[in-house]
């Protein structure tokens, strides 16, 4: 325990050195928040009272902005067009949408199933929560911030439960989180280079292609492994790659007691870095972190998914502080999702005590592959934006968007069903076994 405290203390001391160390991508730079007090349609300007500043600021409209876009006396987020000048509005979005009963119920349900998923496989939820919040009317940056702020308390509760069940390897989690935060910085740098070279559409295309490639390749591998294990009814063993990597005796060696692994830091650190880099690029680091811990480090799926919750807690807390400093968290959404997800995450965590390793792998693979379809549906649109292919007909474009959204919902639903069925089966089997034992004892 003392060692863990020393690591945490060291990380705390290093914080000032890496002020801009973001967890999974940072808040937008060219945006301001405030309330519009006046609009001058004739001169194409509007006066805004920016948060934290006493003097009002006058902004002029960009090319696509009209006077009707400016909403008075409501908190808004304004993206500025830095290429056109210091005070040119690029885009205006209202920060807080009206909360209706339907929206509250939607947030509760998505939270519950998202929580169930992350309690079970260690990650997930973010991939559907952020788009769900955006479709309810939240601006993208607010959706990301609110999701981040809901992630760390959820992961904390889940990690605590699974630590109590003896599944979470806190030390492995700390090593992964610390290296992943460094990996995120590298990922952001790469993103910036691409954004500067190929612009927004190029960056979107790059992200989507990496996303689809990684998820399909890793997802297919995990799926084939899960099917092999479930058919043969074999106990899960460490992969051949992990076993040969564990034989490399290169200083410094690290020992992870819960994961029951002794491996060189030269293996664990790159896994963490890579997870962080992908987290910065595709925003679903867990989908890489968990398979990385299973197939490269050599932990079981049970331990890897539990440890991912420790990683998610640290990265989520780190990220929430940064998004909070930028002032973009919609606490209403955060807490409404938490209301469902705190129940879901504990249910998912206790579900893992009833299932075998391959069930966790199966759920993870199913989610990864369906989410890949969702993002794949967006690729033609980005290709058209880049003029690589001719513009899509409007009908096709809207159909692809619908497919993309419903694939996310399908991923959530499929995961929810597999987890529930596996859990109910496990509980019934356990009860039957206990009753059988009882009868036996009585007879003897």
């Amino acid at each position: 325990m003392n060692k863990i405290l020393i690591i945490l203390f060291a990380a705390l001391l290093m914080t000032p050195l890496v002020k801009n160390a973001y967890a999974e991508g940072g808040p937008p730079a060219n945006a301001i928040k405030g309330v519009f007090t006046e609009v001058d349609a004739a001169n194409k300007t509007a006066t805004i009272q920016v948060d934290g500043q006493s003097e009002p600021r006058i902004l002029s409209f960009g090319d696509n902005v009209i006077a009707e876009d400016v909403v008075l006396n409501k908190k808004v987020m304004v993206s500025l067009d830095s290429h056109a000048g210091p005070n040119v509005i690029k885009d205006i979005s209202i920060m807080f949408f009206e909360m209706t009963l339907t929206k509250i119920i939607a947030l509760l349900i998505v939270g519950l199933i998202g929580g169930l998923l992350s309690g079970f496989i260690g990650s997930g939820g973010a991939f559907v929560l952020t788009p769900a919040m955006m479709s309810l009317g939240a601006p993208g940056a607010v959706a990301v911030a609110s999701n981040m702020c809901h992630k760390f308390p959820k992961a904390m509760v889940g990690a605590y439960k699974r630590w109590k069940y003896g599944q979470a390897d806190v030390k492995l989690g700390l090593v992964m989180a610390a290296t992943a935060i460094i990996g995120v910085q590298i990922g952001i740098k790469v993103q910036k280079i691409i954004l500067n070279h190929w612009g927004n559409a190029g960056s979107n295309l790059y992200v989507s292609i990496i996303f689809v490639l990684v998820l399909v390749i890793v997802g297919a591998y995990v799926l084939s492994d899960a099917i092999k294990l479930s058919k043969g009814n074999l106990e899960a063993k460490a992969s051949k790659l992990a076993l040969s990597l564990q034989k490399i005796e290169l200083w410094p060696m690290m020992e992870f007691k819960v994961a029951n692994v002794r491996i060189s830091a030269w293996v664990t650190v790159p896994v963490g870095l890579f997870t962080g880099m992908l987290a910065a690029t595709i925003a679903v680091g867990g989908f890489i972190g968990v398979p990385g811990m299973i197939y490269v480090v050599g932990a079981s799926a049970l331990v890897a998914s539990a440890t991912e919750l420790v990683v998610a807690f640290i990265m989520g807390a780190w990220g929430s502080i940064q998004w909070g400093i930028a002032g973009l968290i919609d606490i209403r959404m955060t807490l409404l999702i938490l209301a469902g997800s705190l129940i879901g995450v504990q249910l998912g965590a206790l579900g893992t005590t009833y299932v075998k390793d391959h069930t966790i792998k199966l759920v993870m693979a199913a989610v990864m592959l369906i989410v890949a379809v969702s993002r794949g549906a967006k690729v033609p649109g980005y290709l058209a934006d880049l003029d690589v292919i001719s513009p899509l007909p409007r009908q096709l474009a809207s159909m692809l968007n619908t497919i993309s959204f419903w694939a996310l919902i399908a991923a959530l639903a499929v995961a929810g069903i597999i987890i529930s069925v596996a859990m109910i089966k496990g509980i019934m089997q356990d009860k039957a076994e206990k009753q059988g034992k009882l009868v036996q004892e009585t007879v003897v």
Partner: protein
Amino acid sequence: MNENNPYQTRLAVNKSKRSSTSAVTSPATAKQTQTTYRKKKPVGKMLLFGSVSLAAYALLISNEALVTNTYTLGGWWAALPVGTAFGFSFIHGAFASNLLSVLGLEPKKA
């Protein structure tokens, strides 16, 4: 030392008796085994944490405008959303944990 203990003697008598007869279970023994210690469900705790959590949600939603404005001021105000999320996770998390216990959902014991 054991000679003065009535239980010891009685148990010994019973044992010798059973071993001589065939393995027939007496109904009394079976019943006794079945009514072993059963964990009490934490209904009270669930209601307590549930009502605190509900009150916290009601307080937040009734002051929606104030909350959304102060929580998004940025800078040091970031402590508010992060702290609130932390606090809710304890209150509502405790409620959720007790709720699952009341519903009879417990982790498998090895």
